[in-house]
């Protein structure tokens, strides 16, 4: 299969500090790439660079510039509570506001009902809000989704986690997904490839079963990883 994205010798410097250094990797169409690494290793910066938000040196080559969807880190319900926005109002903020029917389709896809449309976002439960955000991203029909550290393992209702929901949608919509997470069980279960970043640079790239052994995990996370190892 052809590469959708090729990154060669990528360097990103923010406020005089090198955050990403000589990074190279490829992503195929329809793949789930997980980006692993401790805090401060440049995961979010990498996503925002690939999205075109930050200046860089090196090469970022998209085979055909896809339509992006992006769920940024830290977009919590608190951010929308300042305004009396209903779910409907929130969809209407998009560039090309989708029609009612389409909104309902995507709400259904993420497990939400039509009755939620006129509810004020601040009144939704945490799980409903997470589902809503996914529908909000999907309704623009993105081909590539960047998903920056959704709340790990949060039960969003019906025994689902954000990840299992995403995985279902990934199968149905044939998406390419870039996922930043700390949750290693998710990495083994869903990722095709893993890119490991550390504060000292990039460590490994490949399928999780081939590259993520205990020694590598310890290199990435230091001793913190012992907690996770039992879960694997």
């Amino acid at each position, binding site marked *: 299969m052809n590469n959708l994205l090729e990154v060669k010798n990528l360097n990103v410097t923010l406020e005089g500090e090198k955050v990403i250094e000589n990074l190279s990797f490829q992503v195929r169409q329809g793949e789930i790439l997980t980006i692993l690494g401790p805090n401060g290793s440049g995961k979010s910066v990498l996503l*925002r660079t690939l*999205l075109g*938000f930050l200046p860089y040196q090196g090469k970022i080559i998209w085979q055909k510039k896809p339509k*992006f*969807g*992006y769920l*940024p880190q*830290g*977009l919590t319900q608190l*951010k*929308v*509570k*300042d*305004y*009396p*926005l*209903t779910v*409907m*109002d929130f969809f*209407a*903020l*998009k*560039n090309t506001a989708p029609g009612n029917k389409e909104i309902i389709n995507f709400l259904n896809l993420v497990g939400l009902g039509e009755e939620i449309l*006129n509810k*004020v976002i*601040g*009144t939704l439960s945490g799980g409903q809000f997470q589902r809503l955000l996914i529908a909000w991203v999907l309704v623009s029909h993105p081909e590539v989704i960047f998903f920056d550290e959704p709340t790990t393992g949060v039960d969003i209702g019906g025994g689902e986690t954000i990840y299992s929901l995403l995985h279902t949608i990934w199968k149905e919509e044939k998406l390419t997904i870039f996922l930043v997470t700390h949750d290693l069980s998710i990495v083994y279960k869903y990722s095709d490839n893993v890119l490991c970043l550390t504060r000292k640079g990039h460590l490994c790239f490949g399928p999780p079963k081939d590259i993520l052994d205990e020694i590598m995990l310890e290199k990435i996370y230091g001793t913190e990883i012992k907690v996770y190892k039992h879960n694997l």
Partner: protein
Amino acid sequence: MMNIISSQLFLTLVSAIFITAITGYLGTLMLSKKMSIVADPLSHLTLPGAALAIIYGYSLFLGVFPFVILGTILIWLIQKRTKLPMENVAAVVFAIAVSSALLILPIDKAEEILIGNITKITVPETLITIILSLVVFYRVRKIYPKMMLINIYEDLAMIEGVNISLYNLLYLLSIAIVLGLGVYLVGGFITAALIAIPAASAKNLSTNLFSYKIMSIVFGVISAVAGIFLARFVHLPTGPMVIATGVILFLISIIFQRRTV
């Protein structure tokens, strides 16, 4: 109509209605923590200009607008260059504006700056008020959805292809013009209240974005009209009375507040 109320009162009412409608509308975008802190310092940018206008005896418009618009562009440029939070930059500019105004302003003539002079507004000033209000309304309506998105989370706006810097400039300029108009109604010290109070009352009662915007405009206009008549009735200054009426509406809105959270 002219027979029932004097032509001066008519001008006062018309300009106050336009000013409070546009401040009410724009205020709905500013009801976030970040922006309500910014409105106040921005409004004080009008002070040095107003002081000069009073000293040299020309229209407040000529004094206020160059200052507030240039000051706003300055804030935008400093913020763009230094990446400091908007509220920090605004606070610095605020300090410069207030101190310079206090240095040059003869205190015995400070009344217009303190409480506005809407009851003396002239025909050309009323016309300018109407035109500027309509222009700002049209502009803000265009940028409204994207500004809301920027307020919620900048990255969401960026992925929708919004030029954040340009939108921020348009937004700040709209605020600057609206605050300049507000000086006429309530003076330079409490203009931010015109922006903050109707939106806060509307938020308490609204169930969606549309009702929020409409209510904020309506509350603004009611407080202006009621404030103007009350002030005449009890022989107190108009500007503060408009704000006081707005505060009463706000208190009523708390009683009927929807329990959304």
